C-alpha cells in the first residue's frame, strides 16, 4: 500500500508541471538572456540622467535610439543596411559555392584531397585580412575586392566543415548502402548527403558569422556606404552615438540572418536528437 502511494504522488505532481513547462522555458530563456544587457543599459541611462557622467564618450541608450531614428527617417539607414547586406549576401554566396564545391570534391575523392588540401591548409594559415592590399591591387578599391575578402572568410569554414564531415561519415552506415547495392550517385544522394548535412549547416553558420566579421573589415578599406562606413564616419566626426548605433544594428542583423539560416535548415534536421537544444534551455 505505502509503495503505491509513494509511486503515485510524484507522478501526479509531475503532470501539470510538464504541461506548463514548454511555455515557461520558451518565455524565460530569451528573457533571462536579456536581463543583464537591459539592466546595464538602464543603469547607464540613469547614471547619465543623474549627472554622474556626461555620457559624451559612452552615449546613453536614449541617445543611441535617437541617432538610429534620425538615420532611419532620412532614409540613410536603409541605404547603408542594403549595401552591407548585399555585400555579405554576394560574398557569402560565392564563399559557400567555392567551399562546397572544393570541400565536396576533396572530401569524396582522396586523390583530389592529397593534391589540393595541403595548399588550402597553407592558405588558411594566412590571416585573411592580409589579402586586402593584394585584393585592392588586383580588383580595385570598389565592390569586387570587398566581396572577394568576404568570400575568402566564408570559404574556409565551409570547406573545412564539409571535408571533415564527409571524412567522418560512419563506415557502418555506408556499408548499409553497399548491402543494398547503391550506385555511386545513389550512395552520395541517399547516404552521404543526409549524413553530412548537420555538420554542413554548422559550417554555413560559422561561415556566415565570419562573413559579417569580414564585411566590417572590407568596409573599413574605403567605402562610402554601408554600416562599416557609418562606424568610420562616426569615428572621424566624433559621433560615438552613431558608432554604437551601427554596432547595435550589426548585432541585430547578424543575429537575424543566423536565425533565418537556422529556421531554413531546421526542417532538414528534424531527425536529429534535440538533446543539445533541450539542455541549452535547462
Amino acid at each position, binding site marked *: 500500500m505505502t509503495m503505491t502511494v509513494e509511486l503515485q504522488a510524484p507522478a501526479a505532481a509531475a503532470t501539470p508541471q510538464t504541461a506548463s513547462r514548454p511555455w515557461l522555458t520558451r518565455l524565460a530563456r530569451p528573457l533571462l538572456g536579456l536581463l543583464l544587457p537591459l539592466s546595464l543599459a538602464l543603469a547607464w541611462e540613469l547614471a547619465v540622467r543623474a549627472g554622474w557622467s556626461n555620457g559624451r564618450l559612452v552615449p546613453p541608450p536614449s541617445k543611441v535610439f535617437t541617432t538610429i531614428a534620425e538615420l532611419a527617417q532620412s532614409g540613410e539607414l536603409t541605404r547603408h543596411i542594403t549595401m552591407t547586406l548585399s555585400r555579405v549576401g554576394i560574398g557569402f554566396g560565392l564563399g559557400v559555392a567555392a567551399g562546397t564545391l572544393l570541400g565536396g570534391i576533396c572530401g569524396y575523392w582522396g586523390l583530389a584531397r592529397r593534391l589540393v588540401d595541403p595548399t588550402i591548409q597553407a592558405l588558411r594559415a594566412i590571416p585573411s585580412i592580409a589579402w586586402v592590399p593584394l585584393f585592392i591591387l588586383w580588383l580595385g578599391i570598389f565592390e569586387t575586392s570587398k566581396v572577394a575578402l568576404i568570400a575568402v572568410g566564408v570559404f574556409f569554414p565551409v570547406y573545412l566543415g564539409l571535408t571533415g564531415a564527409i571524412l567522418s561519415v560512419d563506415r557502418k552506415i555506408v*556499408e548499409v548502402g553497399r548491402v543494398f547495392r547503391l550506385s555511386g550517385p545513389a550512395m552520395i544522394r541517399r547516404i552521404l548527403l543526409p549524413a553530412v548535412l548537420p555538420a554542413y549547416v554548422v559550417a554555413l553558420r560559422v561561415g556566415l558569422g565570419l562573413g559579417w566579421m569580414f564585411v566590417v573589415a572590407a568596409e573599413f578599406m574605403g567605402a562610402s556606404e554601408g554600416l562599416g562606413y557609418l562606424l568610420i564616419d562616426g569615428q572621424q566626426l566624433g559621433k560615438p552615438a552613431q558608432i554604437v548605433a551601427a554596432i547595435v544594428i550589426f548585432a541585430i542583423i547578424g543575429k537575424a540572418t543566423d536565425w533565418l539560416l537556422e529556421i531554413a535548415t531546421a526542417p532538414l534536421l528534424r*531527425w536529429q536528437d534535440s538533446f543539445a537544444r533541450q539542455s541549452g534551455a535547462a
Partner: protein
Amino acid sequence: MLQLASVTKVYPNGVHALERFSSEIQLGEIIAIIGGSGCGKSTLLRAIAGLDRASAGTVTLDGEAISAPHAKVGIIFQEPRLLPWLSVADNIGFGLSELPAAERRERVAKALARVGLADKAKVWPRELSGGQAQRVAIARALVAQPEVLLLDEPFSALDAFTRKDLQDHLLDLWADTRPTLVLVTHDVEEAVVLADRVLVMRPHPGRLFEEITINLSRPRDRNAPLFEQFKRHVLTALDRSLDRTVPDTQGRREPGGGLWW
C-alpha cells in the same frame, strides 16, 4: 544452395582470419556459427555477403559466384544500422526504391505489422528501444525477400529478455518464406534454439572445428532434457575448440552418433 568452398581470408596486415572453410548449406536451412572471439566468424559472413572478398576459395549461391553484395543475400549486423534521417517506414523501404511507390508502401506496411511495429511507422530511429531498432533492421532485410539472410551476433547487444523474444520472433518470420539463415552467435542456447546445424569454429587461423546437427522439432522447448543435452554438447565442443591440445577433428557428428553418451 549456398556453397562455401575452401574460403580463405588473409587480411592485408597479415592476419590469417579464415583458413579453407568449406560447407554446403541448403535453401531454408538455419545454420548457427559459434566460436571464440576472433575466430573469423564475421570475416566469413562478410565474405558470403560480398562485402569483403575472400583471398582464396569461392562462395557460390545457386551456382553463381558471389564477389559483391547480391540481391538475394541480406545481412543484419550487431547494431541495427538504421539511417537516422529516415523514418522507421522509410528505413524499411530503403532497399525497395526500384518498386513503384504504392507497392513499396504496401510491403513496408506489411513488414512493419509483421515485426509488431505498425504504430512506429513515422517515428525516428532514435526514438526506438534497442530491441525495436533491431526489429526494424530485421524487417528492412526481410522486406527485400532475400534467399539467404546473414546475421552477425544480431541480438548480443540486447538484454536477456529482449533477446529471447527476438529469437522466437526471428523463427516466426523465417517460417513465412523460409530463407536460408546463417547466424553468428556466441550464445549456446541461441544456437541450439534456432539452428538445424551448429558449426563450431576455432581460431588462429579461423577454421571449422566441429559440426553438430540439432535434430529437434520446432518449436523447441528450452527446458526439455534433450534441449539441455544439445546445449551441453555444443558447449563441450566449444570448450574443446579453445583447448590447443585438442587436434582438429574433421567431419560431422550424426545425431545419436555420440550425442547422448
